[in-house]
């Protein structure tokens, strides 16, 4: 069996080499749905990060008790519990934001990123590694989300996080903040990432 990665390796891998959105194409539902502005995207990233961290730590602590055929059920229930907590906290302290995100907060339960990390990392390695892995993956997810959201909000409204950036005369591309804009932006950014990583690997070779 291969040597399992150290905490630091896990952390670095999550940000770029194994970025959950661009490299693994996981968790696409929130990636497309809540990126019409920088603020909801950041809130979503923090919510996913919090659930991922808690679930990874919890699964890592009970990994020796897990029975193989029941593990997916245990993962899902653990995640559902933490999502309920995050949902209630958000509704209590950021009511407007929780209205904006609406059903996409409970949909974190079926976000493949979290189940995937529980399966790949937390159910095999210790608490420190699992936590580092969660933070790394969450940062990668946040990076991807804010990237897409920044492009969409800038072109769609001329603003960034509610502040006017482009001149007032900018003809807002309304399509960018509507659903089709999400598909187009993400498709183009994905192609860009593919192009850059191709270019790099060719230069190194």
């Amino acid at each position, binding site marked *: 069996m291969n040597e399992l990665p150290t905490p630091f390796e896990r952390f670095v891998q999550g940000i770029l080499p194994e970025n959950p959105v661009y490299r693994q194409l996981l968790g696409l539902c929130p990636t497309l749905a809540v990126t019409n502005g920088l603020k909801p995207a950041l809130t979503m990233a923090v919510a996913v990060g919090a659930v991922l961290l808690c679930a990874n730590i919890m699964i890592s602590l009970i990994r020796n008790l897990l029975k193989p055929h029941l593990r997916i059920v245990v993962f899902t229930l653990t995640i559902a519990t933490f999502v309920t907590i995050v949902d209630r906290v958000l509704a209590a302290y950021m009511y407007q934001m929780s209205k904006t995100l609406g059903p996409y907060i409970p*949909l974190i339960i079926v976000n493949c990123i979290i189940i995937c990390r529980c399966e790949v990392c937390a159910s095999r390695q210790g608490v420190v590694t699992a936590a580092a892995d969660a933070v790394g993956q969450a940062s990668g997810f946040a990076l991807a989300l804010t990237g897409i959201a920044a492009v969409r909000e800038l072109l769609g409204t001329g603003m960034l996080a509610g502040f006017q950036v482009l001149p007032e005369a900018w003809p807002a591309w309304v399509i960018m903040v509507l*659903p089709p804009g999400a598909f187009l932006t993400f498709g183009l950014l994905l192609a860009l990432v593919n192009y850059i990583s*191709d270019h790099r690997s060719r230069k190194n070779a």
Partner: protein
Amino acid sequence: MEYLFDIFLISISAALINNFVLYYFVGICPFIGVSRQVSMAVGMGSAVTAVMTFAVFLSWTITTLILTPGAPLSAWVAGWFMSPEKARTIDLTIMTYIVYIFSIASAVQFVEMYVRRFYPPLYKSFGVFLPLITTNCAILFACLTVMSNVVGKANPAEAWDLGRSLALGFFGGVGFTIAIVIMAGIREELDLCDVPKPFQGAAITLIVGGILAMAFMGFNGVDTGIRSALGGL
């Protein structure tokens, strides 16, 4: 008449106007992963439709009878321990997500057993997709939509009944099938095209999805149009 019309509007809205995949972005993973051949897409779509209808039925029943504040079953059980007035204020909505995940998992299991027992050829065509569906966000999304229309209505008459919920579940699944089948048809043609290297795979699929979403934006306002054409029923 009023009621049938309402159901008709819910169905059109779920299947076309606010298509689950192209408007709400739920069920994107199979949309990109499975939509390579039309036959596979049809199998996946019918599996999702069956599970979604059944899961919506389960979650509507559980929500109405147990979870919503003042639900009959939970009030009856709580009535053994406390006064009836207090029992009617019992609110179990905090359990919603966990209960829904459980009911979806059991709906998947149930549909799988039923199909395998009674329709073996059908099981061969879409049985492989069934386990994947548990983590399909479209199903949970349908359950949550039903919940938001049942829980927290000031006027109990406004809460959705079973017929409206089932219409949403079934036609939501139909909308998913429509989107994924169109996508598979386009991708079969796309295989013959010379796509630039960075765009190959998911990127071109997403861009095609964007154009498809633009086409589906054409359905915007169809529901209000029908309403006004029929004289504001």
